[in-house]
């Protein structure tokens, strides 16, 4: 457990130190501070979760602006908003930003914030590694986007197929920035996944068996395992690419006998699990929200768990369905066609279970619930269009057309993004102690759903009419006749994208209005079911005054309600406030959380310096390497809690704990 009993640990190591009355300089270990330092040097999983969220939201806006530019360019034939080069950079970076810098960090944010709370832990297993992960992600994201100002961004598409990504075909540094930046973000994902896996496996509250774990934690655990095994594969691919671009390796050089399909295999072995990495967190969120607003447990909890795990497994055997047109040979195509159909089954199980969760319930249509219902319907559309191209021959007509664009936006926007928004509305009071406006939320929901259908719906038709993807312009010569031709649907899609943008703007407005509104939220505004609600809003630094012992799935609900043996309906036996008061009465003594640390941000800061040096001057890389080595040894030599001597004037200010809580 990550609770530090500070007792006599420090003196026990033999260094007998009296606290000096005055010290100079900054060489003290940071202790729980206020202001910006409280954030920059923090190792608190909740603060890091929020920072992940804020970073992701920032990149969501960046990626969104890129998307709007793309739609502006394509609104009419022979678009002139962007030139071919800029357009190629735009769609590459739109995908990269949305996948790696928005959805993944956002999911990491939710996971960081809520997994320890949901399993009744006080922190994650490795708090400093957690901080390192966040800073790496942030620096990696900034690093990739630096390329816009240093000669142009990557222009090979997010799939970066070789040999088009080679030095001959993309002579700017864009792809170097892209490859190194993703490498950095990859390390962040890897450290995050190790951390959360250990947290979930090792730090559950007493009594919480794996099958009593909240479903969101379950889905996130599956995601972490997917990350754990998928990230190294893309790491290898990116290394091969970087070595080719920067050191003259020949991995994708056809003249040397190389096979460009190697990249595609490596990329998609990572890339397909990545799809589930993006969408499973939202499945988890929805599986939390639906039971709460149906007042009923998740239907078939074990089925949902195992279907999630099954998706995690089968997800490894379907990668080549991205390559049906690459020329794999009929046998491979047939096999991957079959596995792709197979993975539709566990996905279907989830849809059925969500519907059956609502069946027989007492449905409350809050904004969070609406987003979840939206996900069920829209993700189904995406899933079914997915089935149509698991049929390989039909996929050879559809792949690389707008039909595919439509498909994965229904999956990722209709799936991942709606789930994330559902999570925002559901957990906002938990994270900030204030409720997002439900009225604005309603507008937000409908504008997003309508905008999304207007934007991506017509793309189905465009694709089937034969408009390929990744074209910086389309011409009237191939647009077809009649009203419902390319021109019409492209215009509809572009209008839809702005409706969608307004919907998302409303969310941001909602956030600002809520922040300014002094009204506090009730302790348990949704009548929720799982452990994270058994703390104050927002939670104290140490999460729980006493670690609860778990007896049920949906422990919190069962502490509030009891079954009436006659009618089998539930009646309330305690309010949330009473449950919490009970906790506070039995609070643990001597809880010490790990102290903040300088090292994560220093270590993370060294990495982009190294990669920057790899691109421009190896001398800079050496400097970065020295900082990295310095920081990692500093890290290794640092005890988890600061020595007593570093806590300033404790008598006056009380313990760090007291300052931060409440």
């Amino acid at each position, binding site marked *: 457990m990550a609770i530090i009993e500070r007792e006599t640990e420090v003196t026990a190591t033999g*260094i*007998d*130190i*009296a*606290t*000096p*009355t*005055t*010290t*100079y*300089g900054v*060489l003290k*270990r940071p202790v729980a501070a206020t202001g910006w330092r409280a954030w920059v040097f923090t190792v608190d999983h909740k603060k890091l979760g929020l920072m992940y969220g804020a970073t992701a939201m920032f990149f969501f806006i960046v990626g969104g602006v890129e998307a709007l530019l793309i739609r502006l360019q394509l609104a009419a034939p022979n678009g002139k908003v962007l030139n071919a080069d800029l357009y190629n950079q735009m769609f590459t970076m739109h995908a990269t930003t949305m996948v790696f810098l928005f959805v993944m960090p956002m999911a990491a944010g939710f996971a960081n914030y809520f997994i320890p709370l949901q399993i009744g832990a006080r922190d994650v297993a490795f708090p400093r590694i957690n901080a390192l992960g966040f800073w790496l992600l942030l620096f990696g994201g900034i690093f990739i986007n630096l390329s816009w100002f240093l000669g142009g961004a990557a222009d090979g598409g997010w799939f970066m197929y070789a040999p088009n990504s080679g030095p001959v075909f993309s002579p700017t540094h864009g792809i170097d920035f892209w490859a190194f930046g993703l490498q950095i973000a990859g390390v962040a994902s890897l450290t995050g996944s190790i951390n959360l896996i250990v947290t979930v496996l090792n730090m559950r509250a007493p009594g919480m068996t794996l099958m009593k774990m909240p479903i969101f934690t379950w889905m996130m655990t599956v995601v972490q395992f997917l990350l754990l095994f998928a990230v190294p594969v893309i790491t290898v691919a990116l290394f091969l690419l970087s070595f080719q671009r920067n050191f003259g390796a020949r991995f994708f050089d*056809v*003249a040397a*006998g190389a*096979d460009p*399909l190697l990249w595609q295999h490596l990329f998609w072995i990572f890339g397909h699990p990545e799809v589930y990495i993006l969408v499973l967190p939202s499945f988890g969120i929805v599986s939390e929200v639906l039971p709460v607003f149906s007042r009923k447990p998740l239907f078939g909890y074990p089925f949902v768990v195992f279907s999630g795990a099954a998706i995690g497994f089968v997800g490894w055997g379907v990668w080549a369905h991205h390559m049906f047109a690459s*020329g794999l040979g009929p046998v491979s195509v047939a096999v991957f066609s079959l596995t792709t159909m197979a993975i539709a089954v566990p996905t279907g199980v989830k849809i059925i279970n969500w519907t059956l969760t609502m069946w027989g319930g007492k449905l409350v249509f809050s904004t969070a619930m609406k987003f979840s219902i939206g996900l069920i319907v829209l993700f189904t559309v995406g899933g079914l269009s997915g089935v149509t191209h698991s049929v390989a021959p039909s996929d050879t007509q559809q792949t690389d057309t707008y039909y595919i664009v439509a498909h994965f936006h229904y999956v990722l926007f209709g799936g991942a993004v709606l789930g994330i928004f559902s999570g925002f509305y559901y957990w906002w009071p938990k994270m900030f102690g204030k409720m997002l406006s439900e009225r604005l939320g309603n507008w937000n929901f409908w504008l997003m759903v309508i905008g999304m259908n207007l934007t991506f719906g017509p793309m189905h038709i465009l694709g089937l009419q034969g408009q390929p993807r990744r074209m910086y312009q389309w011409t009237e010569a191939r647009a077809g006749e009649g009203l419902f031709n390319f021109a019409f649907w492209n215009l509809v899609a572009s209008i839809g994208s702005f409706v969608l943008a307004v919907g998302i703007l409303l969310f941001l407005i909602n956030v600002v209005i809520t922040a300014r509104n002094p009204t506090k939220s009730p302790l348990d505004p949704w009548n929720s079911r799982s452990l994270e609600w058994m703390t104050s809003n927002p939670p104290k630094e140490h999460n729980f005054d006493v670690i609860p012992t778990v007896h049920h799935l949906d422990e919190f609900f069962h502490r509030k309600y009891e079954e009436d043996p006659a009618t089998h309906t539930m009646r309330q036996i305690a309010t949330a406030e009473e449950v919490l008061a009970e906790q506070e009465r039995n609070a643990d003594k001597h809880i010490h959380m790990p102290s903040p640390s300088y090292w994560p941000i220093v270590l993370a800061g060294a990495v982009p310096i190294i990669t920057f040096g790899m691109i421009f001057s190896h001398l800079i890389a050496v400097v970065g390497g020295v900082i990295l*080595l*310095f*920081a*990692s*040894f*500093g890290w290794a*030599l*640092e005890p988890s809690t600061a*020595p007593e*001597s570093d806590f300033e004037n404790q008598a006056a200010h009380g313990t760090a704990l007291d300052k931060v809580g409440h």
Partner: protein
Amino acid sequence: MFSTGFKYFLGVTVLSIAALIMSLFVLDQVAIAGVAISMLIVVTALLAGIAVVTRDGQTTTSTPDASNELASQSMWPLVTSIGVVLLALGLVTSSIVFFTGVIVLLAALAEWMIQSWSERASKDKNYNAAARKRVLNPIEFPVLAALGLGVVIYSFSRIMLTVNKTTGATLFIVFGALVLIAGILFAVKPELKRSLVVAICVFGAVGIFTAGVISATSGVREELVAAKAESHELPECGAERSEHFDKEATGTLSLRSSVSATIELLDGKLTAQVVGFNKPQNTVTVRRSTPTSLIFRNLDAKEYRLVAELGTRTLVEPEGATEKNLVCTQLTAQGSEQLLLLDIAKSPKAGTSYSLTVPGVEGQSIELVVP
């Protein structure tokens, strides 16, 4: 007393003088080096004088809270001066010396700064020591680790490059065994004198490092020198056997997906199986400027190679002369396959043609058409 600053500047001066004398003997660019170093000597000597007169600019009053004890003895001034001199020497000699100087200088300055800072961090000596450790250990550990690691790796690779292959392997296992034995010895005899242990370790370290340096100066073994001089281009294709080229000629290459045609030799007959054509062909179309792979499958009893005759090419030396432009596979045994990778930029000149033949098999050829 002599102040720290004085010691430092004096050190630089003395070492600079040594460097000047050395450079006079060793270097050709005496003018630049001499001027540079002489300037350094003058400046540092002057500064040393100032330092000793002003006692490093220290006034008598000390800050109230900081420690006003005299600075403890320190080796960092000396190391810093060594760094400066190395740096200056490196400027005129080699970049390795220069960078060593930079690293030594930076390391020493960092150590020095932090040490002197930590000595005044507070009144509490223990606290100061702890503070120093916290900051400096992260620098010292990796530097020491890198040094130790570097010495072993460098020395070892150098020794191995010098001695011949068999001796190298033997030396390697002997060294491994020695390390192991020493470990076991120290483990079972913990009562061994500390000085003995240190002696063995130092002896080992110095020994290996010296051997490494000696090896480095005496150069790599002859075979490697010869190998380096050798051309590694694939040699010409003739009917004659080429030892280097055909050494370890092996079976298939794993490029099946990209094969354009398979050339079969059976019963003295050469035929081409072209992807898409149902019947054997006697022409193969090869696209211009496109890496194209052909598989040569030898089903005949003897060893053969497939040769592509691609017109003539002009030689650089003697100027204007031409020779046949040939590309070939290695010798291919019966039942095995070899890959031939072609990349032809131009169509054959009018009246000529490109063809595939097998030396030793007469009258059989397949035309290569390059549209």
